[in-house]
């Protein structure tokens, strides 16, 4: 069996957004200044696409980042046959997880946001949008960077559990939310980002590159900023 390959990569972070085809593009002003401060409320789907998925406005920050990172992959998942989408796994890793939404829900419990108080909800949002029904895994890590997500997704390919695997590293704790509570230093907000890799087997396409181990976010940055 061929080793896994990166078929597409995307990244959103304070310094910009893009994929392995476009490279990193800067955020428009004045959003760039807000995002540089870690204020993420201005992150909106319309930055990526003229279409308007109604679900987007209901989502929390973590889901929005994941949703945008997958959209940014430019992988045309809708065009893939259902049988292939049944064999596409999704693995998400995060340090801050759903803490941003947890804090907001603990302060003002509302049914509409309770479903987002789980770091795995983003998997559901992505799967609903694209019809993915493959294996799933949601890891909370002791530090940001997505060290394990790529390894776990690659393992699905190696064992034959999936033919394609999406792995994401997401950090979305808004500093303005964190400031509302006296959180301990161990839970201080880290640099926000959304990074996604689509892994598959080497298919001869110009985009396919060898899969490199190591923190997922760093890998994404490497591709996007090539």
């Amino acid at each position, binding site marked *: 069996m061929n080793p896994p390959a990166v078929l597409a990569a995307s990244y959103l972070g304070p310094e910009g957004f893009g994929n392995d085809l476009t490279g990193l593009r800067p955020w428009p002003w004045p959003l760039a200044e807000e995002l540089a401060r870690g204020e993420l409320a201005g992150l909106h789907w319309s930055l990526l696409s003229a279409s308007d998925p109604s679900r987007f406005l209901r989502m929390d920050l973590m889901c929005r980042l994941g949703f945008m990172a997958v959209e940014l992959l430019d992988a045309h998942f809708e065009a893939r046959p259902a049988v292939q*989408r*049944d064999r596409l796994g*999704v693995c998400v890793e995060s*340090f801050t*997880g759903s*803490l941003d939404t*947890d*804090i907001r*829900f*603990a*302060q003002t*419990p*509302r*049914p509409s946001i*309770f*479903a987002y*108080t*789980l*770091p*795995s*909800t*983003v*998997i*559901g*949002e992505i*799967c*609903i949008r*694209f*019809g*993915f*029904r*493959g*294996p*799933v*895994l*949601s*890891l*909370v*890590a*002791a530090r940001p960077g997505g060290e*394990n997500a790529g390894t*776990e997704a690659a*393992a699905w390919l190696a064992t034959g*559990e999936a033919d394609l695997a999406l792995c994401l590293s997401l950090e979305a704790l808004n500093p303005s939310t964190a400031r509302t*509570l*006296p*959180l*301990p230093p*161990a*839970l201080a907000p880290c640099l926000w980002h959304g990074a996604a890799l689509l892994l598959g087997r080497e298919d001869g396409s110009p985009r396919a590159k060898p899969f490199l181990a190591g923190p997922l976010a760093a890998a994404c940055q490497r591709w996007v900023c090539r």
Partner: protein
Amino acid sequence: MPIAVAGCGALTAAGPGLASLLAAVAANASALQTRAYVLGRTTQAIVAGYVPADVVAALRAADPAHADARAFLFAAAALDEAAANAGDRLAAVPPARRGFVLATTKANIDALDQLVRRQPVSTVAQRQLQPALLAADLAARCACRGPVQCVSAACVSGLLALGQGVALIRRGLADAVWVAGVDLISHFVLAGFTALKSLDPEGCRPFDRARVGLSLGEGAGAVILVRADLLAPPHIRLKGTGSSNDANHLTGPSRDGSGLALAIQRALAAARLAPDQIDFINAHGTGTPYNDNMEALALRSVFGERVPPFNSNKGLTGHLLGAAGVLETTLCVAALQTGRLPGTPRLRERDPVAPASLLAEPRAADRLERVLKINCGFAGTNAALILERYPS
């Protein structure tokens, strides 16, 4: 590489240890109780599987440094029991070859409730609000110095964590993996489920014609997995796992059960088994109308009209959310060890939608070599796991 179960532990509403839990299983008893909670501006009577107050007090007295870190105390108690059950069979595994995987949805969520209310809360309790840091602290306590992971994937966390334990051993990263699941009943969780109107005010009645919702539970389960060649037979082996997503709805199951059926088929394929080789199924069985309907459809889809005997234990313990998969796996291990099938506590009248093989009462099994465990969760996630008695 075959993987075996070296030891199990539990802490639930039935009391400390597997013995209390298995005694309640044998009696087909329910440990659900009513407590009053102030949620918003109203006081509500909530029926749930609470860990008894005297048990919590004893755990706090034994470990004052974690007195306000219930998630740590609960998981540590279950892990201690699992290690004690494994006995010296793990002595050959050095700490560097011991992995650790935690399953939880909200870790030490009590701390967030206290922070929001500006109540005093210890630094360690705050730290363990982050699931992976709770996992790291538990791993250190168990002298597991190999790989540490934390799975947080709603109510399938436990089965996915057991799958990760298998993966860590098969990849050669560990010879044994301590897998624990823990979740708490807190204001946070109660506020969420009452807002969704998911709770049965009388207590859950899985697969019952009159069921209207679930009951929450709290506690912990622990399973220690080990390379099978390190554990002399007879023992229980973990044969295969599978997972899937419904791609349908965030908080409700798919109506046709096809996502869960997919996860079961993947576990069967991983275990290289056919459906007719499964002797018993421990269902998710939350007691919500939609979940139990969906599970019945999924079971019929995989097993046809010959669905093996199956049960739900949520009427005994309540729904332990991220810990459910690990806890319920300990019950499956016990069933394989004793040859006795558990019943479905609080069931009065089987809903005709449920296959007739639903076990109302515990009984001796005609044949019990392989067990299927299934769970489903928010975000459309499904997971399945198969255990086997070895040699069969």
